[in-house]
């Protein structure tokens, strides 16, 4: 697929540049245009590049051993933006296609089995783009590259999955560059624009951080933790490829970086992130297998509590700093 899209524009307004030149001693400017320029657009560009590499690698050699490095690179890149669930990635369920997890009923495996035993035409790009979302994306790729039992690699499905993932990543990247970035930089440009004011944008970005942290604590750690009497190490995310802890760590690092682009003045928030990141770095339990033992469980719970504490501080200090709050209705409906 051709990519006739312009490169990302530097979204720094001229007046702000003038300010920077005159106020040399002023602290680095940080607000949503910087988040867009330094976090969101590079994040999606990196994800598009990494998935394009994976698709190219799959064409060259579809064995699991050959593809695993490119798969991990693509998954790493996704963790750089996985906390962002607004704009193009939400269209047509793309975020769920990219990362269909959790999948408690094993729909992904069922749908992939159906694709493997069905008409090969279903693996053509146009047809595969309409295939079950559970069968596709990074977790579809994981099942193919880390099969439960050794198999002959299903090359056609591996290539279809990689190509589809790269296509979606390219579309998300392009739609941010050619439309959504402008919508974010010029809120209220039209009456039906997705953002009407600058505070709307800050609120939306703040919400990504708050919900992103909740998802880490409740889902990526909460699912394997289960209940104390009934832990579920089998429910850890990306268990087969050994990425459960890595995904949490990379996500924390990405969100910390995002905070720094939003404001230079949230020291407690940064400290809370640093504490959680340090705990994650020191946790020697890549797939949270320890949740089944008392001491191992405690370590994962301590990480979970550090993330929950970060969420509280984000809701307090960062909300104050950005003059925003968790959305009234999304945060607490009835």
């Amino acid at each position: 697929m051709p990519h006739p899209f312009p490169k990302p524009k530097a979204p720094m307004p001229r007046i702000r540049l003038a300010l920077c030149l005159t106020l040399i001693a002023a602290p680095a400017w940080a607000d949503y245009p910087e988040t867009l320029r330094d976090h969101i657009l590079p994040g999606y560009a990196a994800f598009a590049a990494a998935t394009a590499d994976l698709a190219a690698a799959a064409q060259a050699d579809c064995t699991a051993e050959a593809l695993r490095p490119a798969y991990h690179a693509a998954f790493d890149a996704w963790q750089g933006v996985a906390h962002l669930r607004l704009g193009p990635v939400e269209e047509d369920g793309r975020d769920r296609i990219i990362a269909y997890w959790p999948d408690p009923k094993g729909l992904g495996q069922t749908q992939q089995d159906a694709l493997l035993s069905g008409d090969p035409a279903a693996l053509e790009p146009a047809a595969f783009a309409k295939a079950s979302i559970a069968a596709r994306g990074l977790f579809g790729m994981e099942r193919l590259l880390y099969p439960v039992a050794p198999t002959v690699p299903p090359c056609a499905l591996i290539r279809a999955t990689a190509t589809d993932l790269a296509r979606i990543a390219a579309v998300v990247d392009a739609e941010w560059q050619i439309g959504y970035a402008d919508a974010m930089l010029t809120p209220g440009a039209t009456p039906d624009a997705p953002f009407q004011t600058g505070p709307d944008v800050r609120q939306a970005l703040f919400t990504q951080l708050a919900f992103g942290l909740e998802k880490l604590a409740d889902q990526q750690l909460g699912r394997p933790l289960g209940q104390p009497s009934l832990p579920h190490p089998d429910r850890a995310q990306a268990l087969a490829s050994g990425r459960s802890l890595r995904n949490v760590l990379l996500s924390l690092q990405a969100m910390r970086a995002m905070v720094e682009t939003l404001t230079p003045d949230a020291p407690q928030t940064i400290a809370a992130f640093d504490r959680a990141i340090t705990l994650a770095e020191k946790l020697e339990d890549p797939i949270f297998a320890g949740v089944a033992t008392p001491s191992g469980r405690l370590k994962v719970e301590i990480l979970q509590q550090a993330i929950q504490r970060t969420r509280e501080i984000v809701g307090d200090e960062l909300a104050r700093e950005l003059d925003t709050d968790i959305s009234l209705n999304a945060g607490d409906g009835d």
Partner: protein
Amino acid sequence: MAPLKTGRRAFLAGMIAATLPRASWADVGAPAFLAAAKAGTEYELHGLSATGDSLFALPLPARGHAAAAHPTRAEAVAFARRPGTYALVITCLTGRISHRLTPPEGRQFNGHGAYSADGALLMTSEVIADGSAGRIGLWETETYTRVNEWQTGGIGPHDLKLRPDGRLIVANGGIQTDPSDRSKLNLDTMRPNLALLSTTGEIDEIAELPKDLWPNSIRHLALIGNQIAFAMQWEGDRSEDVPQLGLWQPGQPARLCPTDPIDALTMKGYAGSIASADGLLALTSAPGGALALFTTDGTPITLHRSPDLSGVAAGPGGLVATDGTGTIWAVNRDGLRPLARHPVAWDNHLIALRA
């Protein structure tokens, strides 16, 4: 002597109140809607015109959930958030709180209420604090004295609507909550239902969901004639895609209306408000930042996006939605069109006044 004097004074005050003409909705600008809002750190109840102008803004002592409007008098009841220990009757001309309703000992308001068509009775959804068994409180509306209560046939009732035939529909959400802090206590065993209550409070009929959907709490209602459209909130595994909309014609089983599979993901298993107008049915999902549109027979049409959409109601000009950024939207098949924007966050529900 003193007690007599007090009694006489109260009697006289009552006489004066009864003989004073009470303000009608026209006297307060003929609002089309009521909506609770958060303005800075304060809470308010607004009367809104059909085009989204705020006609009045009255202070509320705490965050409100929903309101009910008297059919003729410019009088509204604002319900506290669930589980609530008070509801306030507000005279909209002056903003004065004329009555503070308190449920009987051991009962809690559960967020919604409805007036009878003639305005003589107010019905409130309530739970018995211990165990969340549902009750409907009945209050006469001259002095707002509690006159009776009915069982709802389920646990954790939330929204309720009066049908044109005078019978009451109650959404028994099925969730047992901790009386003090809204914690949900029975997500593993919940079993919501819809109950149709006769004009004298007998349970005429109950509709239930299939067992695999019992974690789908039935919370909000819209009437399409005598048919009931109901909106659900999924308490089960978040990765499952389940319907948020159902339709029930009493005498028949309830029918579930799945959202388009891709849009269902956006709704995040959550429908906050529901309303119907002009052959359309709208469901909002604030967590998804979306409004799903269906035909009134439950066929999905499209999905519109905007952050923190929550309130939706049928106004004189069609469907209108409100959100936490202060925007009021006209809703149609093609999209959302902004009508007005206010420096407040509109809270969960938008309440239509009867035309």
